[in-house]
């Protein structure tokens, strides 16, 4: 019985293997018997506009056998050469159904994907079937050249915005320099700065000024330097103690210069000490831990938070509130504003921070810039109303003016 079973199994296995062999041969023969697909048509290659060069765009009409006809096209392979006679090099591929390939080269000459500018290039697109041997090449397109552009035409709206805004700013700065009185409405948070410094002097406690976690190149940090300048000047006049713990070493360097100049302007250069402005660490929560410790140990009368803040805003402001300090905050980080509004006595919201620096500085340059910004806002209101009317009536010509390309 056992022998019969073994013989039967061997026969079965042999038969199965034979069938599989036949099946494979059948599949291979199917692959071999695929008819070559129809080629793509209308191949065009052109330089990519508004770029630094080294890039070309290919477009074509797909093969009639792509998702239709014989339905045998699996992908398109793209070939490039510097001569119409070849040799052509495969530079990439796209799946069937596509009719565009962006041949974006890189700048290093030694790299394989480098595309030389101002050089004749020739392209060919192959419609490839499941069997890579069976394919149909398109006609060769060329010569075509890539070249760099001096001007990004997709960013014309930005140019106009720069010219208009720059012109407005120069006009108002010149008006302010001639002595014209430019009105800036009072901001409660800024009016409170003077009171807070007075309070600190009366209580004999220090003022803690936090510049935030921003780097020296951020607009909010730059605005904060101006406010620090004013605070430091007043602190120097009142002979109060100032503490400025910094997160970023460059910010610390600038802040030291700012405070030093303010003490000089106030006529108390000898009262300045480099240790007033010091570096803690460039780690967010380690910085927060250290500043919280300062708040609880030094018990400052006033905490001023001006600049860029992130997740640490609520931790700082809450600790300051627990320590019983008057708190004035200002940031353009929208996500953190709610925390400052909740935990601080006064908060400068977004652009109020920039306005505060102009309000306190009273310099023609800053006042003129603030006035220009107000005119820009008026322009935004007018343009938005016009845009809404255009959107209602489907006037795309107007709305397209404001589309900025990457």
């Amino acid at each position, binding site marked *: 019985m056992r022998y019969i079973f073994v013989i039967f199994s061997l026969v079965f296995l042999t038969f199965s293997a034979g069938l599989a062999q036949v099946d494979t041969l059948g599949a291979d023969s199917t692959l071999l018997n695929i008819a070559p697909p129809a080629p793509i048509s209308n191949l065009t290659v052109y330089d990519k506009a508004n770029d630094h060069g080294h890039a070309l765009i290919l477009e074509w009409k797909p093969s009639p056998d792509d998702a239709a006809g014989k339905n045998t096209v699996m992908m398109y392979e793209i070939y490039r050469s510097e001569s119409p006679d070849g040799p052509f090099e495969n530079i990439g591929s796209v799946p069937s159904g596509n009719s565009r390939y962006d041949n974006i080269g890189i700048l290093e000459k030694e790299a394989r994907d480098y595309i030389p500018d101002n050089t004749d290039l020739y392209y060919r697109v192959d419609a490839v079937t499941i069997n890579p041997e069976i394919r149909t090449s398109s006609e060769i397109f060329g010569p075509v050249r890539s070249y760099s552009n001096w001007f990004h035409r997709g960013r014309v709206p930005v140019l106009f915005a720069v010219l208009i805004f720059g012109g407005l700013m120069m006009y108002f700065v010149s008006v302010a320099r001639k002595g014209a009185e430019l009105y800036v409405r009072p901001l409660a948070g800024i009016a409170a700065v003077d009171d807070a410094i007075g309070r600190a002097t009366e209580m004999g406690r220090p003022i803690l000024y936090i510049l935030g976690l921003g780097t020296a190149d951020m*607009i909010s940090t730059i605005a904060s330097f101006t406010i620090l300048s004013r605070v430091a000047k007043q602190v120097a006049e009142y002979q109060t103690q100032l503490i400025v713990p910094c997160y970023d070493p460059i910010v610390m360097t600038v802040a030291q210069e700012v405070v030093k100049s303010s003490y000089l302007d106030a006529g108390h250069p000898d009262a300045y000490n480099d240790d007033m402005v010091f570096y803690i660490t460039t780690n967010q929560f380690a910085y927060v831990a250290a500043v919280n410790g300062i708040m609880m140990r030094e018990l400052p009368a006033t905490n001023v938070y001006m600049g860029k803040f992130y997740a640490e805003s609520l931790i700082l402001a809450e600790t300051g509130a627990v320590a019983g300090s008057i708190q004035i905050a200002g940031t353009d980080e929208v996500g953190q504003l709610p925390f400052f509004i909740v935990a601080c006595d006064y908060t400068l919201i977004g652009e109020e921070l920039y306005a505060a620096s102009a309000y306190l500085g009273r310099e023609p340059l800053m006042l003129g810039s603030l006035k220009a910004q107000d005119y820009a806002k008026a322009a935004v209101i007018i343009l938005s109303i016009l845009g809404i009317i255009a959107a209602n009536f489907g006037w795309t010509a107007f709305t397209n003016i404001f589309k900025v390309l990457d």
Partner: protein
Amino acid sequence: MKRTTLILMALVVIFFALSWIFKAMAFKGVEEHYILQGFLVTLAAFLTLSIMSFLYKDNPFYKFAEHLFVGISAAFWMSMGFWSTIVGNLFPRLSEGMSNFFKVHYIPGDYNFFFYVPVILGILLLMRLSRNYGWISRWSLAFIVGTTAGLNFIRYLRSDFINQVSSTFVPLLVDWQGIGHFFSSLNLSASGQFIMMLANWVIFLGVMCGIIYFFFSKEHTGLFGRASRVGIWILMITFGASFGYTVMGRISLLVGRITFLFRDWLGLNI
């Protein structure tokens, strides 16, 4: 230091020493370096509780955790700045000798004269250490602040000005086919006509009133003042929503820390 404080500190040290022993015993047979693993988990729990103790008041444990955190992070960033920026990125592109000295791979093809600009600016910045030539460091600062302010000017005009203006170009009457059709098809579906129109009206009025609030060169009185009041209301409602959303995220961070304490440290599967 008070006697009671010293006794309390000693008790805490004993408690965590015992925790280390128990944790190491728990890791025995599971981890190869079970004593070290026990120490690391216990230390993490101790530091977590030390930082959390600040909620009660400033205390020696918080001070210890704070100084440890600040010291380690400052040293880490100093080290990272030198090894990744100067040794990792600059030397391989400037000097084969220095690359060999620091045992980093020299990249001859990447040599670029402009890499010397940050080197020179960095050296100028270090001139602050000199009493007589400290003023030279202002050149680097002026370069950093001036260049980036100029670059940001274009970026902000594009993203915060033009793109935002074009985002307000929304139709106030969406798919309008008359007042009868509007009321007959009234529903609260998110993609329905009513909600779409309401959203566009909120965008329109919110943007207009919000901008009016940020006018600084005109007094906020009369109609202008009323629009400004609406603007600040819209801002406050937005901040309220943002507050709730962020607090939810913070709660999840707290849950993560409590899970560590209960599960990883105390071994309680809650």
